[in-house]
């Protein structure tokens, strides 16, 4: 498969947190969700792709090019949406766009204005008068106005109400109809990713836990629930995490078929949602 982003052995050490050995690919033409609890390292990964922070080790290739050596060429093809949009507060939206437009060879003013119109934003509005959701929409309009091949979004739906989130996700879904476009967005809101993502990369405590197709994950991962204390977590095939109480065991498995065949009717085996997966891996008693 052709990849828009290839990350190998990425490392970034802070005093209280280390992102280590991060390796995953983002396939071209799809939406990939970078999922993980707060503080897992999602923003760090996105900032490293954008070279906003310095890496300690590893390699990031975007469109097959090293992101440090070919920084300007790569960034001209990326639409970047920050978790908290930062623009000069006292400027009008059209002024901000006018300042940024010359940097992008494929900037399309008509498309930018159409996107603002779609989002019901006036180009004459001063940035500081926008709500958080509107700032996010403006940021997305800027990212989409230069026909970027890759849209990178850091927690774009955090803090947005359901209507804003729905609109934003629909925009992403529409964008991906053009098979040249790729989207990587980080989120801890699992329902957003279940709705639009094609691939999921799960990060926890600075390490990649898994990276696979969403449908494959939802098809093969499951939660095994057993009452009574007779079953040990290690007996669950493909164990990835579990939660034990005095009277029951709940275990997350990455091989629900094997679990079903092993336990038959003696245990409830249900498909896992992304929320289940995030919970068991990040908050369960242990994970494999």
């Amino acid at each position, binding site marked *: 498969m052709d990849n828009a982003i290839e990350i190998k052995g990425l490392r970034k050490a802070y005093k209280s947190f280390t992102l280590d050995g991060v390796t995953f690919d983002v396939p071209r033409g799809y939406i990939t969700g970078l999922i993980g609890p707060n503080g897992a390292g999602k923003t760090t990964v996105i900032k490293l792709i954008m070279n*906003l922070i310095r890496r300690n080790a590893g390699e990031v290739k975007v469109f097959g090019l090293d992101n440090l050596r070919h920084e300007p060429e790569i960034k001209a093809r990326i639409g970047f949406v920050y978790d908290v949009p930062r623009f*000069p507060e006292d400027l009008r939206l059209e002024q901000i766009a006018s300042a940024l437009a010359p940097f992008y060879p494929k900037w399309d003013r008509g498309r930018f204005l159409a996107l603002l119109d779609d989002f019901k934003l006036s180009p004459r509005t001063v940035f500081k008068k926008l709500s958080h959701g509107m700032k996010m929409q403006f940021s997305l309009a800027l990212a989409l106005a230069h026909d970027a091949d890759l849209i990178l979004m850091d927690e774009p739906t955090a803090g947005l109400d359901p209507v804003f989130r729905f609109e934003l996700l629909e925009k992403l879904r529409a964008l991906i109809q053009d098979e040249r476009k790729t989207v990587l967005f980080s989120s801890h809101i699992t329902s957003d990713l279940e709705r639009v993502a094609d691939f999921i990369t799960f990060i926890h405590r600075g390490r990649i836990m898994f990276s696979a197709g969403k449908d494959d994950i939802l098809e093969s991962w499951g939660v095994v629930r057993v009452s009574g204390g007779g079953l040990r977590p290690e007996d669950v095939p493909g164990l990835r995490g579990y939660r034990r109480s005095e009277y029951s065991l709940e275990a997350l498995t990455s091989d629900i078929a094997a679990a079903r065949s092993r336990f038959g009717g003696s245990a409830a085996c249900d498909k896992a949602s992304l929320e289940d997966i995030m919970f068991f891996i990040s908050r369960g008693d242990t994970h494999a």
Partner: protein
Amino acid sequence: MLKLLRMEYLLNRRQILIMLAIFSGYFLFMAYRIDSPRVFLVTLCLMMGLAVPFGFVGREDKFKTAALVCSLPVRRTTIVLAKYAVSGIAMGLGLAYGLLLATALPFTKISVAEILTVKSVLISLFLVSLLSSFIIPFTIRFGLAGIIIFLVSGQLLGVVALILAQLLGRGPNPLRSAITAVEKGLRTLLYHEATPGFLALLAAAIIAVNGLSFLVSRALYARRDL
């Protein structure tokens, strides 16, 4: 580079107008009150060298837009170069505007012949460079809060120095020696004969100070995690 300059102008347009209004008032007052061209020149350079880079670089820190600028398709070296260029252009225009006001106004006490010389211009550029070359890297490293703390600390240090100078009396002491050295340096600079060698030295010093400052700023900006 030109795109960055244009962007800096568009993003700072309002700031420039505010500065222009404040400086106009201040220059008019100075031109009316000060009759020494050297005092006028040094004060003008102090204003420009402190306020202009502080205004431009500090504004980025105020709105936390460094991440926005660094996400654009340009290298960080070019961004830093643009900051120097935009500060240099603004300071140059500011100096020219200040000198023009001081010489053209009907009520001015400063003579045109004394202030509009190659030596005056080079001294102005040297003094402005000396200040801005410190302020720009300092603001990049410590941000707006850092520069405010630095300026307030400078003021407090001045007060402490004055008190100490009073306490230590008129006899020779390290503090008095340091102040005298600065004063002598400034006096030499202002009163030195405008020989070709002196002017060439000034020009070389301007380039060296700015070049060194740029290298420090570039290193600081490249290491900055946003």
